[in-house]
């Protein structure tokens, strides 16, 4: 048997093996076309819309989580600001209360001093009025005493003094009293 016959025999055997397995160029191309068709349908009608929606949903969820984190951060910052403001307000309120207390104390002291002064002034005025009244009383008493002495002397002497004598007599008497 020649080499050509052997090669021909092997080639026929290969072809028959492929044929026995059902391999066929036309069927292969048909099935390839079927697969391409099904791949196009699956991708464009099923997988692509679904993956798109999944991605959109994932994006929305991620954004929502980010927003929630931002809100949480803002809330914490607001809480911190609120606490700071409250603390500052408390501090200011304490300062104002302290200041009011100090001022009230100061005013109290001032009123106390003024009252003391006024009381002292009143006492002083009263003392002066008493002294003045005392002087007036003393003078009144002296005059009464003089009159009484004159009246008594008249009674004793039994005669009535005229005005000239009377004045002279009083002056003498007063001189004596002073001495």
């Amino acid at each position: 048997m020649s080499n050509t016959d052997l090669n021909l025999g092997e080639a026929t055997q290969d072809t028959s093996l492929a044929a026995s397995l059902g391999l066929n160029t036309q069927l292969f191309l048909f099935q390839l076309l079927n697969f391409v068709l099904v791949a196009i349908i699956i991708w464009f009608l099923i997988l692509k819309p679904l993956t798109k929606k999944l991605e959109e949903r994932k994006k929305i969820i991620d954004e929502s989580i980010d927003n929630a984190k931002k809100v949480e951060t803002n809330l914490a910052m607001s809480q911190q600001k609120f606490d700071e403001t409250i603390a500052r307000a408390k501090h200011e309120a304490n300062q104002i209360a302290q200041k009011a207390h100090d001022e009230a104390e100061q005013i109290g002291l001032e009123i106390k001093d003024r009252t003391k002064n006024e009381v002292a002034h009143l006492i002083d005025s009263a003392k002066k009025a008493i002294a003045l009244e005392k002087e007036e009383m003393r003078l009144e008493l002296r005059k009464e005493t003089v009159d009484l002495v004159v009246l008594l002397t008249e009674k004793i002497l039994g005669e009535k003094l005229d005005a000239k004598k009377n004045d002279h007599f009083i002056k003498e008497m007063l001189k004596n009293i002073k001495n």
Partner: protein
Amino acid sequence: MTEIHIPNLPPDVLFQIGSFDITNTMINAWIAIVIFLVLGIFVKRSAKLRPGKLQNTCEFFLETILGYFDQVTGDRKKTLQFLPIVGSIFFFILLSNWLGLLPGTGSITLRHQMLLRPANTDLNLTLAMALVSVISSHIFGFIAVGFFSHLGKFIQIKNIFKSIKKGPIALFVALIEFGVGLIEIISEIAKVISLSLRLFGNIFAGEVLISVISALVGVFIPTPFMVLELLVGLIQAGVFAILTIVYLTIATSQPHRVEEH
């Protein structure tokens, strides 16, 4: 005991449109296409931010496979980049496999041929998907790492010229790397063969098993085998899709640079 109809390896030609043969596996694939089309129209129309029952169910499946794909790629962005190919492969294989378990598959005949047969019992389809998987991995590789960088993973001739000046050991290493590159080319072909034959073999074997069991005992006994086939259908869809995403991830990763002294 009924007559045992063991399916042939090649799909059965039911009729012809012009000069084109229409096989029973194609009918099954078309049913899957119609189901996806109807489902797709409903999903696209009803897709909202607040999902309904249908969207929720579809999103559950999608989220589940995305989780597995993320474990391979390590990056959701990359997973979404590969999803058009890998997702289509996974869902198409899964539905095709499960459609094969519907009543009527293997039992309804047309001109003494089975009218319905699981689409993945046709090597043409599994080979087409395997080729799409491997070729797309190279296209993504060219885009991601550059044409020459990706080609350099297989044809490492540049290192041979560089190593001539460095001495015999460097030249020897470069020759080995060149050989490894050639083996890589063979492994790419092996990927196509293994992907297509694994899926074909598993689903075809399942179909044969169900046919034989159903012919021997018609009631109750085939049920556990059908449950097993549900699992096999899911596993095979998962294996095919995971391997595809592994190929895509490897192809789009930067090649290891040989440390230069």
